[in-house]
Every structure is written in C-alpha cells, then in structure tokens.
C-alpha cells in the first residue's frame, strides 16, 4: 500500500527484547524519524538491567497523544526482537495490532539449565496468530548478516516497520534518523540493514 495516506491520529509502538539486542537504539531511530518528519513524539525507556540478560522494554508514541507509556491492549505495533518475548508482550496488543517479530530465540537461563522449557516455536506462532492476524515473522539476524553485520538486526527490524506503511514517515526522515542516531562509521552498514528490512516488508513480509 505504498504512498497511502491514512487518517492519522496516534500510533503506539511497544518494543521488547533481551539485553544486548539493541532495542533502545531501535526505539531511538523511530523517535528521530518522527521528529525529522515534524510529528510529535514521546518515548519511554527502562534502563538498569540491559546488560544482565533481562527483558528490555521501551515504547514510542507518535502523533496526537501525551503519555509515553502504553497500557495493556493499546499497542498498535509490537516490535519483538525475540519470539518468547513476543508472546510475553502479547497482552500489550489488540486484534488490529501489527506484530513484527524476530524468529531467532534467545534461551532464558532458567531454560538453559533445564528448569524450564522454551515453548515449541510452531505453537508459539500459533498462540500469537490466534489473537492477532497481522504478524510478520523474520530472521532478522540472517538478514542483518547478509547486509553486512549481525549486530544490525535491530536496524533490520526498524526497516521492516518503515516498510509496513503503518507509520506516516517518509524515506528521507528515516535516512535523517540513521544519520542523527548512529556514529558515521556504522551508518553505511545500518543503512543496508534498514533497506533489507524495508524491502522484506514491501515484498509482503515473506
């Protein structure tokens, strides 16, 4: 639905992932793109445990809204960097939400030592599909590797979001966001990662 102009009010985007996956940087990219587009934006981050393998959650609200946080059932878009965390964050979504989720699991410690089991992936996908129909699954790590660096998988996911047509943000605003947010030496590789995600999204998310 390229170039579609939608009646735009506010879009609430919830990010979830595991410490070290770069969710906060992805959050920042979306915020900078909104700012570059001249749309009001507010974001919320929780700092403190990012390096210790815990869940990292953040949110971006763009458009006509005040609150930086997102109550349960009110996220229009869920950006899940890890499948188990996608399911854990499902209560944030509503039936019309868009979910963009990375397929590569990161096994929690409790599972790794055999105290718990990681949900079977097909069942996990099914549980999500049951509630929300608009789900894009992708192996962001592989797309990022092909684009030049596994570490840019967060930017791949942002590219998928940009290509989804759900946000009223033009390509030049995303370019501006990449330049403003990233150190010059890594802009190139992240631009490629972004484009890979964008193209994936435009091709229908397959």
């Amino acid at each position: 639905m390229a170039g579609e102009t939608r009646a735009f009010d506010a879009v609430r985007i919830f990010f979830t992932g595991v410490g070290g996956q770069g969710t906060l940087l992805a959050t920042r990219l979306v915020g900078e793109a909104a700012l570059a587009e001249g749309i009001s934006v507010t974001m919320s981050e929780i700092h403190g445990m990012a390096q210790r393998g815990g869940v990292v959650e953040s949110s971006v609200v763009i458009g006509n809204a005040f609150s930086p946080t997102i109550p349960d059932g009110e996220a229009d878009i869920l950006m899940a960097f890890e499948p188990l965390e996608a399911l854990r964050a499902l209560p944030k979504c509503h039936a019309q939400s868009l979910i963009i989720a990375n397929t590569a699991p990161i096994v929690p410690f409790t599972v790794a030592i055999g105290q718990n089991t990681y949900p079977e992936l097909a069942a996990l996908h099914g549980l999500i599909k049951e509630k929300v129909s608009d789900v894009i699954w992708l192996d962001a790590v592989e797309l990022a590797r092909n684009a030049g660096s596994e570490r840019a998988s967060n930017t791949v996911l942002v590219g998928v979001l940009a290509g989804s047509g759900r946000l009223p943000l033009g390509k030049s605003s995303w370019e501006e966001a990449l330049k403003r947010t990233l150190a010059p030496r890594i802009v190139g590789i992240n631009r490629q990662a972004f484009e890979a995600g964008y193209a994936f999204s435009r091709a229908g998310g397959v």
Partner: protein
Amino acid sequence: MHELLQPGSERKQLLLGNEAIVRGALEGGVRFVAAYPGTPSSEIIDRFYQLAPEVQIYVEYSVNEKVSMETAAAAALSGVKSLCAMKHVGLNVAADAFMTLAYVGVKAGMVVVVADDPFLHSSQNEQDNRFYAKMAGVPMLEPATPEEAKSMTLEALALSEKYRMPCMLRTTTRVNHCRGPVALGELPGNGSGSSPPFAKGGQGGFQPQGTFTKDPFNLVVIPMVGRKLRLALLEKLSRLQAEAEQSPLNFTVGEGKWGIITSGVSYLYVRDAVRDLGLEQRVKVLKLGFTYPQPRAVMRNFLRGLTRVLVVEELEPFLEETVRIVAQESALRVLVAGKGDELIPRAFELDAAKVKRAMSNFFGVSYQSPKVFSIPQLPQRPPNLCPGCPHRATYYSVRKIFGDDAIYPTDIGCYTLGILPPLRMADVLICMGSSVATAGGFSKVLDRPVVAFIGDSTFFHAGLTGLVNAVSHDHRFLLVVLDNGTTAMTGHQPHPGVELTPQGKVQPKVNLESIIRGCGVTRLATVNPLQVKKTQEVLQDLREHMHEPGVSVLISKSPCPLFENRMLSKKQKVVFEVDASCDLCKKCLEEVGCPAFVWEQSAAGDSRIRINAALCSGCSVCAQMCKSIKPRRLDDSKGGDQ
C-alpha cells in the same frame, strides 16, 4: 563536541529527561556538580562527567549522596551555582544535610534533583519524596516531560537564587527515562554559537571561582543561630507560598463542572484519558508544576464552582490531602476523591488506562477497557550475573565452606542478584550498607556463622561506619568485600578505590586494604575469586578463626569483566568446552549457574551439557571444579554458536 553542548537552536533535540536536566543546568550557569549514581538518576551525573573535559565545570562522583549534597552546598555558599542529583532513597542518606541546609541556605542557585521510582523498577522501596520538600520547607518543582525537566531546572535555579535556599526538582522514572523533543536555549558565554560554553582556558582544569564571606552567626547552626534561621525559613516559606500562587507552572486546561488536579507524569495520563473519554467539555484539569509550597489559593479557585474533583497522583495522597483541607476550610460543596479502591491506586505506577478507569468510576461515564489477551505461563527471564562475573565465583566458594547454615546478609549492587537459584546467597537486605551492621546484630543474637557481602562502591558509600562499629563492639562475622573495581550496577562509574581508568591502570586514591586495616580489622585476607582452590583455602582458614571474637574481612578482588574489557580492550584468549567424559552430574548447573551453560536434550532423549561459546568469557571457574571442562584457544575472532 558533546551533544549537550550544542549551541541553542530552534530545532528540537530528542533528549532523555535526565539529559534535559543537564542541559537546563548548563543553560542556567551551573558550574559545580556532585552526585552518587543511582537509577533512575544516573545519566545526570554521567552526562556531566562526559562533557566536563570540554568546559569549566567541576564534576565529581561523590562517595555518597550526603557528601554530594554537602560538597555542592559549599559551592553554592561560595557563589558558584551547583547541582546534586540522587535517586529517591539517596535523599534518605542526604536527609541530615537537606533538612538543615534549608536553614543555612545558599548564596548562588542550588538544585537538588531527586528521582523517585514508582513500581520499584530498580529500587528497594517506592517512597514518595515530595514529603521531604514539605518536611524540610524547601520549594519543589515537578516536571512531566523532558521539555519541562529542562525549563524547571532553570526555574529551580532562579527560585534558589531569589530565596537563597536550595530548590528540589522531583522527578519519577517515567520523566527521567522519557525521551522527547526539547528546544535548546543559549548557553552562557556562547552567544556566537561556535565555541563550547565557558570553554577551558589554556591552563585547563577547573579554576577556583567562588567567593566566601565569613558570617558564622548565619552559617554555623548552633542553637541560637538555628532558632533565628528557623524563623527566617518560615518567613521565606510564606513568601514562597505567594510565589507558588503566581507561578505559571500551575495552570488549567479544559472546562466543565468536573475537575482533575494532577502533577508530574500523571498529567500526561490525564490528558489522554480526558480525550479518549470525550470529556474535554466536561472536565477541567489543574496541572501543578510548583508543588511545594502547595498553591492553596490556586486550588481553592479551581475548586469553586466544581461539583466533583478527582486528584490523580502516583504514590501517596500528597496533593489530595491539601485539596481536602482547602475544600473544608472554604466550606466548598465539592466532592473530592483520589486514592481508593476503584479509583487511584496508592502502589506502583499509573497509566492512561488506570486513569480512565478511575475517571469512569468517579464521574459515572462509560468506559470500555480494552480486551487484554491472556497468555500461558512462560519461562521467566530474570536478570542474572554475567558469564565470568567474579561475584558468582565468590558465592560458589563461600557456600562450599560455610554451607546452608550460615546467615548471608547482602547489600545493593549487581551482587544482589546472588539471591537467585542456584546461588541463593542473600538472606537479608535493607539499604545501602546494611550488610555490615545487620551482620553485627545477627552475630550477637544467633549462634550461627554470619557472612556478609558488600560491593566496593557500596562499602565506600555506607559500609565503613558499620565496620568501625562492628570492630569496636567485637561483632563476630566475616565481611566479604566484593571488589570488582567499579560501580557496576549503575553503569561502571568510578569510586575512591578504582584502579582501571580510561588512561589505563592507576594507583587507587584510597586503598581498600589500608582503609580496612585502619578500621581496626586484624584478620584480613585478599583473594582472586577466580582462583577457586586458593580462595577456598583462605575461606577455610578464616572460618577456623571465627570462634575468636572480632570481625574478619575477605577482599575478593577481580575486575568486572565488562568494565575491564571496555577499559583495557582485552582480547579473550580461550573459551571452555565440555568434553565427552561428562557424566551429567549437573553440579555445574546446580552449584555455579553460569548463563553460558546449556542443558540440551535431543529428540531421542539423549542429554548433554554444552557451553555456549558466544557467552563464555573464559574465566575458567567451571574448569577448576570439573575435569570434563577443557579450554579451547581462540585465534583472533571469537567463534560464536548463539
């Protein structure tokens, strides 16, 4: 140039609330900053520390919050504008200074930033620090957004200068860690916009720039001076009352016969709720930014003509109680509500949905709350000590020697995560430094071994006095100082004992071993916990001496690997692997609990234990306890099998 030193511009920048506070302080001419880090306030001192080399500003990571406040107060008493910042419980530590600094006052502006943490995202309690402003008689401003955080920092400086007393800027996690657009004003001495503000001259470093006029009968609070200052404080408060009544930081939006009174981030939830419920023509909102002294006349005028008023605030009914008093004093026929069942909860954070529910119940308007999808029980993902963390090695060895019977008081830092299985090395925690003094108390009333754990930064912060007390009273316990050379939990800030710096390895300013000996400790040993056998021998020896009265101390010294890698750019040389001789005893999983270990079961039912090479830090602790774990040399780049 640091991004917070950019010249003023119309184009807004996306700043964290904490960064906006830094920018506000810079625009307001703050030249002296002191703080002890603590979530959610840490980025304030961290950003100042990062930009300090470019400007003439003195920045210090103080040893604790009380010290930071007293240090910053001296600057402000000498005419140098200052700022100190702390998390909410930090103000408990600094409270002694805070309460009387309100009497003594300042000569130049001084801002005390206090960051509350509703929901205890990263804290031991969720106390509402607005009561401290009231108790001390210090003016308080409460921002809702990063933009307001910046403008209110400037306003706080102005108020502080005008009334010659510190001003408190009270934030909450959702303000500190909200990122939003902020317009940058001009920095002092930077009208041209090209050079950094108050840039360093040729000599470099911060130059003394204050002036101090001796005035002991106003600055030395002996009782006769304190009595005079107490009356002067009350007089200032009455003038501040008038100031609050006039302040543009308190304003109303909307119209109607119903009202909402709110402050801080709750205001944002209220605005969304009013709109979502379609009540813009029926509900008037009073947003308070200047919340101590509380603007009673503003409240009274707002209440007049309204039939129902809901007070929406996180934590305690701080505003609500005053609103009720004001309504009663003026005999207003208005129904006031706030905290209560089906209304505004007293515990944890609010959000727009909670506010909508409360408004729906109170005003009797319909609200269909969103359907919330249910999910099955999922494996938790708790934060954990990192692979290679020396704290894990220390805990492993202490448990080997002292077992389940010992009491393990702990303290605040990464190592508090030792509470989790399989380590389970935490029995009591109250606050910063409590490990040492609670250990002393336990040792007097229990006939069991007591082993207390405290981090190096926390030891300097609040452990020293407890140790002196324990030594002087012959308390009988082992204190283990987990010395990883940094303040790890809050983001690797320096402390008095650091040896690793961006410039390489240095002599610590304060030597941990000397200071502990200086406290009168005679049984003291230092080990590297990554050397498991040696550590356990030393622990065994200390245990055997614990029938004698007095405190024993073990310094368990090994740098935080995350910090060491960053400071020294160290390249990892080996990873460890489990070989075929593994008999699946699972002791590695059940006793050490390193996150690099994986228990795998094939479809055929075969089990094996594997070490994830991408996570293994090469610390070798596991290999010292199990013969089936062997090193593998890494060439140049680390092989990962994530």
